[in-house]
């Protein structure tokens, strides 16, 4: 049996897939102790823990440690003269009109930042040798006296020559073997000292947190007779065996959304869909991602609480539009939705927990595109009257009915979501019409059709149990690790050799590492060169196959770069301007032998029948059905509401719905 347990901000989800089918469990999270929520889910699912062969876990523990600055004491060591890198940051502010703007607090304080005497130049040449004696005499005693659990090391220009960082670790480890040491050059080999230092510091900071969390979790699993493989999700869309994760904690940050994207990618992939736009709408936010040829886009521009982390992560765009987004009227008399949210507490007015402002969830109840009985499979008390009450002032302002006001709010929320998708598609040279939409999360399937229509998307694929897609994604994910190396070089006649040598070196290291984790079958390697016109601001990723690399020459490199650049920026193809490599990346993937099959939960039944709902400014007559009652043979016409225990799918007029043989529901435009 394979089990995925995903701890979210509000709920902890569990998906178990075994011989007797699919089991889905949702329990409230325990924010202070995420593992408590995870165990509650295991208990509530009534699974036999000793029968679990594969347990994959995603948790907010690392993310929360950073957000709340509740990690363990961590030190930061850098080159003489640069102690304040973490405090100085990049001088800009994220919110320009906020007159009392505060910078995000670094995870390591100035007091805990130390310098060593050494200097490497941008060429890699050592200008000043590391003063080893001073390290032993001054730094080591301070690290010892500070009772630090972890130390991050980021020396200037270590991305080109990491030898001083490595020597420093050796010296520290000799004296303080229990201290965990993170080297910036090992976490990310990219230039720009603040971003690399920030990545190293956060990485060191969450290391003891993840280490202890995993240790505690494993102990508890073993007490319950667990003997299977235990793995943890990463933000790059792959998982790692728990043991390896204890050495690579930073990749656990914000892994939840990545798990959802992977689940959606795998499940839609079963039906042959490879080019996807995923749409995950939750309580406070919406996450969208572009998946091309079965691979989610990756990015290294990633922030947590305003602090940069330069590791490859799935490129997910988040907007503050969710079920809890507040609907309001601005001073110019226009209707607005978000960015403020009622959050999980008090939540929408209909939760009856004191929410006084209208939200998107309330709007769905008023439109009757969501039934009060559909919340948490009917286990939640919903106050429809409260929802109607808070929408009254909006209806009056625009001289509309409640239904029209609610409908307008949803149209606006959809417009915000469309913007979010355009940011990651059209603004990067991708036409959304070449993609199918895969909605999930509690509210994704409610909004998908309208959003898809606006983007010109003709097909929507809705996975079964779409409300727990992240938990499924955990067990559907491969094992993945990435590494990068900055090696800036102008593309000249030796470019082919440079690429071959660099990737050969990186490949050997990666294979060794996977061998060490016991993952040496079904390996796939992804080679990416980050390139740009000489002097350009940002790099364009150029993907290369192993075959291409064998015969690569300068002309071919120029051609591939030109093509990639043209696609994103509308120019560059055929240009003869000088180009250069900036860095090289290698992704190593151990693919799953077989994919667990997600299906409907057949025992979940609703009272099927005729309903009325309001959409696009008018009342419609439609049908309410259990999702599991659809079959591949039967195509149904919207308006429909299809419920499963985890979400409601709204099929508006103008869309046809059918189930396919992989348990996905496929919606197609019929007009």
């Amino acid at each position: 049996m394979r089990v995925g347990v995903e701890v979210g901000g509000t709920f902890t989800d569990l998906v178990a897939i075994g011989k007797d089918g699919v089991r889905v469990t949702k329990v409230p999270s325990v924010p202070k102790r995420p593992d408590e929520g995870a165990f509650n889910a295991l208990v509530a699912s009534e699974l036999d823990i000793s029968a679990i062969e594969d347990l994959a876990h995603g948790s907010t523990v690392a993310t929360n440690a950073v957000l709340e600055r509740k990690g363990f004491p961590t030190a930061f060591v850098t080159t003489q003269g640069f102690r304040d890198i973490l405090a100085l940051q990049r001088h800009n502010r994220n919110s320009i009109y906020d007159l009392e703007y505060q910078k995000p607090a670094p995870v390591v304080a100035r007091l805990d930042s130390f310098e060593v005497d050494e200097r490497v130049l941008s060429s890699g040449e050592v200008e000043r040798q590391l003063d080893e004696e001073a390290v032993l005499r001054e730094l080591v005693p301070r690290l010892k006296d500070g009772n630090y659990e972890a130390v991050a090391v980021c020396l200037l220009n270590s991305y080109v020559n990491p030898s001083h960082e490595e020597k420093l670790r050796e010296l520290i480890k000799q004296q303080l073997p229990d201290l965990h040491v993170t080297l910036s050059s090992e976490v990310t080999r990219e230039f720009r000292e603040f971003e690399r230092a920030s990545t190293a510091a956060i990485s060191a900071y969450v290391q003891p947190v993840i280490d202890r969390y995993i240790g505690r979790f494993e102990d508890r699993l073993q007490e319950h007779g667990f003997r299977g493989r235990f793995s943890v999700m990463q933000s790059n869309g792959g998982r790692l065996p728990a043991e390896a994760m204890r050495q690579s904690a930073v990749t656990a940050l914000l892994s939840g959304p990545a798990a959802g994207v992977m689940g959606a990618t795998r499940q839609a992939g079963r039906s042959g869909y490879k080019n996807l736009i995923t749409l995950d709408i939750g309580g406070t936010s919406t996450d969208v991602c572009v998946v091309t040829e079965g691979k989610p886009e990756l990015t290294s521009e990633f922030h947590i609480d305003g602090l940069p982390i330069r590791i490859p992560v799935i490129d997910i765009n988040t907007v503050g539009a969710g079920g809890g987004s507040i609907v309001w009227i601005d001073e110019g008399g226009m209707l607005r939705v978000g960015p403020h949210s009622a959050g999980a507490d008090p939540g929408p007015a209909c939760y009856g927990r004191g929410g006084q402002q209208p939200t998107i969830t309330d709007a769905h109840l008023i439109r009757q595109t969501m039934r009060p009985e559909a919340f948490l499979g009917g286990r939640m008390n919903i106050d429809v009257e409260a929802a109607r009450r808070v929408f009254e002032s909006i209806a009056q302002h625009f001289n509309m009915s409640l239904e029209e006001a609610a409908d307008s709010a949803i149209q606006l929320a959809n417009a915000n979501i469309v913007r979010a998708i355009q940011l990651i598609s059209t603004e990067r040279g991708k036409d959304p019409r070449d993609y199918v939409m895969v909605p999930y999360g509690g509210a994704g399937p409610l909004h998908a059709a309208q959003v898809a229509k606006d983007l010109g998307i003709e097909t929507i694929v809705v996975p079964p149990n779409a409300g727990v897609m992240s938990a499924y994604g955990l067990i559907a994910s491969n094992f993945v690790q990435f590494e990068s190396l900055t090696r800036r070089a102008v593309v000249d006649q030796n470019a082919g050799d440079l690429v071959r040598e660099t990737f050969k070196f990186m490949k050997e290291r990666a294979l060794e590492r996977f061998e060490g984790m016991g993952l040496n079958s079904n390996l796939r390697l992804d080679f990416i060169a980050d390139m740009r016109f000489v002097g350009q601001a940002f790099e364009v990723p150029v993907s290369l196959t192993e075959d291409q690399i064998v015969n690569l020459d300068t002309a071919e490199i120029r051609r591939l770069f030109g093509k990639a650049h043209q696609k994103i920026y509308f120019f560059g193809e055929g240009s003869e301007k000088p180009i250069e490599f900036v860095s090289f990346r290698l992704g190593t993937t151990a693919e799953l032998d077989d994919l667990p099959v997600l299906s409907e939960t057949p025992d979940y039944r609703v009272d099927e029948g005729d309903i009325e709902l309001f959409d696009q400014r008018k009342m419609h007559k439609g049908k309410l059905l259990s999702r599991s009652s659809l079959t591949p043979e039967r195509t149904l016409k919207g308006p429909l509401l299809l419920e499963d225990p985890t979400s409601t799918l709204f099929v508006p007029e103008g869309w046809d719905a059918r189930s396919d043989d992989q348990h996905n529901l496929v919606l197609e435009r019929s007009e």
Partner: protein
Amino acid sequence: MTVATEETFDPITLEVVRNKLDGIAEEMEVTLFKSSCSPLVKEGLDASASLFTLNGTTLAQACAVPIHLGTLIPAVAEILRTFSVEDMEEGDIYLLNDPYHGGTHLPDIAVAMPVFSEGRPIALAATMTHHQDVGGMSAGSVPTNATEIYQEGLRLPPVRWARAGTFDRTLTDLLRLNVRIPETFMGDLNAQIAACKVGALRLDELARKHGNNALLTIFGLLIDRAELMTREAIRKIPEGTYRFVDWLDNDGIDMDSRVRIEVAAEIRDGEIHFDLTGTSAQVRGPINCVPSGSLAAACFAVKAVTDPLIPNNGGCFRPLRLTLPEGSLVNPRSPAPVNARTATIKRITGCMLSALAQALPDRIPAPPAGQLLVMAFGGRRASGEAFVTGELIAGGSGAGEGVDGVDVVETDATNCMNVPAESMEMESPIRVRQLRLRRDSGGAGENRGGLGLIKEIEILEGVEGAVSFSHRGERHFVPAQGLAGGGEGQCAYSRILRRDGSSEIIPSKMVTQLYPGDRVLVETAGGGGWGNALSRERKSIVADIADGKIGPKAAKDLYGHEAI
């Protein structure tokens, strides 16, 4: 004004179109940033993108840096005055950079393109980028010792660079010949054109969806609404006239004359009037600032004290009025030099905010260092390859009611990122020797002003001849004032330490030459303090001492703190 046409266009359509317009401007801006070449755009985000109606009213603007707010307005107006819309064709490209023809300063080049839908012009897409070099007397085109605009670089009145997609070769050749790094220059211009094309493409899509006429009506309604919202927001500020005076160090020529900026902010009947009467006459050096600068400052101030969520279009500017005396620093006559006007705009913004602080004491903190130190280095490597690199450094922000100032952070009208040491070292034969917080530089107070920064830069071997160096500082002679009894921030202080052991103090602004082994040591200013320093909480003082933000002497002298 009226919003009576609401029946014709429901509020949802309006909001959806507004959302799209903002999205288009943002997409243009992303294209601009990502495909530009020069570090100023790369790391400094010194560029912006806008959409305009055919009569030159802003429809939407994306700008990461507030100094660009509204700055394309006079440029587009000038282009429209020179070339009528009737005479424009699809694929035309217009250029402009002359400050006395609607520009800002010469490195900022405006590129505009008419947007056509179904053969009819419906709008203009425009971008503004700070170019790394536009010729003139010094590399980087920001000569602090310029006394005439002719020394600052190539001047472009409104010109048509491309007609229906065909470029004017003569102009291209002329442009290339007049700048120091033509590849970078043309690369950045191409990025601007690419951004305009994206804007045109998307706007055409929008027009096809809604219809040309309907879209033009919606534009008008959106602008009216932003005006209404801005007026409502201004009404919430207590009415009255509020004044503030601050000074710039000097104009880079007459080194001992401080330059006065005076602002009277009058709030009356939903309108805001900034009167800069009392400001110094125009100066010989390049810190003169054409009117677009004061407009950007005012836009920033209004947005910051009202509601930044008000849609960013031409309607916001209607309740705003500026009085800028002709022949003064803020409305100079040609050919006064203007390249270093960023410092002036920052100080004008600071004065506007500090004036309004009297009306909104709990919202606006003490004056910040408000300096953006700009250094430029240019020369040749021994290999013969030319390099030009820049550096942007902030000081501390002012403390407010309940909060300390922020150390080393951009404030007011600019929001630049620094240039990473590793980036600078990669691009030029320069080494950064240190980078640290400057102890005791924040103004003392119940809430302490933010600290400045110390940075030391060394010229390495491997350059051919001299490296030209320019330093454009502020707050070297006039500190950031405190508020509510708080102390002043420390002044900035910069020196050149020559290889032979001699040293030269940089009097705020300087253009000189550096040689291998020479070092530049800069210390940026701190922000003003808030409230009486003797009332500062003991635990905050202890924490500051432990953290090295204040020394024991300052703790005793300024905060009356005795170590136990």
